[in-house]
């Protein structure tokens, strides 16, 4: 039986591991390499690493290589990906999937080209959504730019264009640790047939259970809970398993 995945998401800024709240107030929480090692040792299901500066500074191959050398779990890399050449380079460096966001909104045909060349399974489209006047709008550029696209409509379009997976983050809940935005997750996961990774808001194991049971997510991503609490990916999986959800333990 296919297992629900628990995916630690690491964000890097100024070469440090950081954690944000609502996509701002980035707090330096230490060395990314130390975090990568810990998660590899803990045998996590999958990991996601996003270089938040890469949109401005360009992709840093050396940094990504440092990370991939330490990872024997599926690894998605993102930040600053603009061309199919970028994707090709990341796959050579040891990425299994790439995460694209702003470039996909700027030129949706990038998704078609990327999935045609590398296969849908390696193209993760990241959607950052925020509630604006009762509707979920898609934001790009690290949450700074409102595209006015509706999250559900955009999710359906990226699916049609060949995305293999959606990484859906609630900007409102990011770093708040007060639970996932269940209505956002539910609306998107019901609207598409590809896997949806829910992100933003995990504060305890109950939140994780809810986003799977009520939100319908295929996988969940979390950051703060692993940095600021004692909860481990394994503890979450055991909690899910106790509640009848298949996990890899």
């Amino acid at each position, binding site marked *: *039986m*296919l*297992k*629900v*995945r628990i995916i630690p998401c690491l964000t890097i800024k100024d070469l440090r591991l950081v954690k944000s709240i609502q996509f701002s107030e980035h707090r330096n929480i230490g060395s990314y390499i130390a975090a990568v090692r810990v998660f590899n040792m803990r*045998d996590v*299901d*999958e990991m996601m690493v996003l270089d938040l500066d890469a949109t401005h500074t360009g992709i840093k191959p050396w940094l990504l290589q440092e990370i*991939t*050398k330490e*990872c*024997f*779990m*599926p*690894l998605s890399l993102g930040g600053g990906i603009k061309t199919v050449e970028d994707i*090709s380079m990341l*796959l*050579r*460096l*040891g*990425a*299994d*999937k790439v995460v694209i966001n702003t470039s996909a909104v700027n030129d949706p045909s990038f998704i078609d080209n990327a999935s*045609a*060349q*590398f*296969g*849908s*399974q*390696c193209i993760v489209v990241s959607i950052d959504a925020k509630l604006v006047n009762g509707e979920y709008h898609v934001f790009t550029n690290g949450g700074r730019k409102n595209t006015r696209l509706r999250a559900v409509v955009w999710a359906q379009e990226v699916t049609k264009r060949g995305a*293999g*997976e959606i990484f859906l983050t609630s900007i409102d809940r990011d770093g708040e640790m007060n639970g996932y935005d269940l209505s956002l997750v539910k609306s998107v996961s019901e609207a598409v*047939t*590809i*896997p949806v990774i829910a992100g933003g808001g995990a504060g305890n194991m109950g939140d994780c259970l809810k986003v799977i049971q009520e939100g319908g997510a*295929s*996988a969940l991503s979390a950051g703060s809970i692993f940095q600021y609490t004692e909860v481990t990916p394994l503890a979450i999986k055991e909690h899910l398993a106790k509640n009848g959800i298949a996990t*890899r333990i």
Partner: protein
Amino acid sequence: MIAIVDYGMGNVGSVKNALEFLGATARVSNNQNDLKQASHIILPGVGAFGDGIKNLKKRGLISVLTHEVFERKKPFLGICLGMQLLATVGEEGGTHSGLGWIPGTVRQFEIDKTKFRVPHMGWNDVSPKPEATLFTDISSRIFYFVHSFILVSEEKGSVSATCEYGEVFIASIEKGNIFGVQFHPEKSQKSGLKLLTNFLHLRA
């Protein structure tokens, strides 16, 4: 030296990282001489069937691969698309001829997509046959999959493991020195690294 065939398809970096972690010398290459010198050949790959075959042809690799595997009996491992390309026919993006080493067809999952999201992405249980060479001494048989297409073959004797996702499908094949896995051993943590170790222990 282990040759990882570079034909522009896929996560060659992560296969190389895993082999080097295991202490093997691995070379990502599309050079015929490297394939000739290699002790083992790995055909990795993620991507579309048609492009995969086209790229192998374009780089002139099919005849050297066939020679090294069938005449010199080198252990060969196809991973994901690399296994699917061994089929006779692939139905991804039109109908394409494959290498034909395993009689069979590569087709989409025929499952209810409202219940089973496609791609089949994540960790799933694999059921190997007791005699399956690559699964020796692997206790946790949960491996990482990422695919939308599956290999269907009537040659049951070559099927060494199955998996289930809405339908039962081939998770691995074994035919003499030819091995293939639908999942990604290079990304399946300890179980995957052990499977690769078992492959590295084979001799031509």
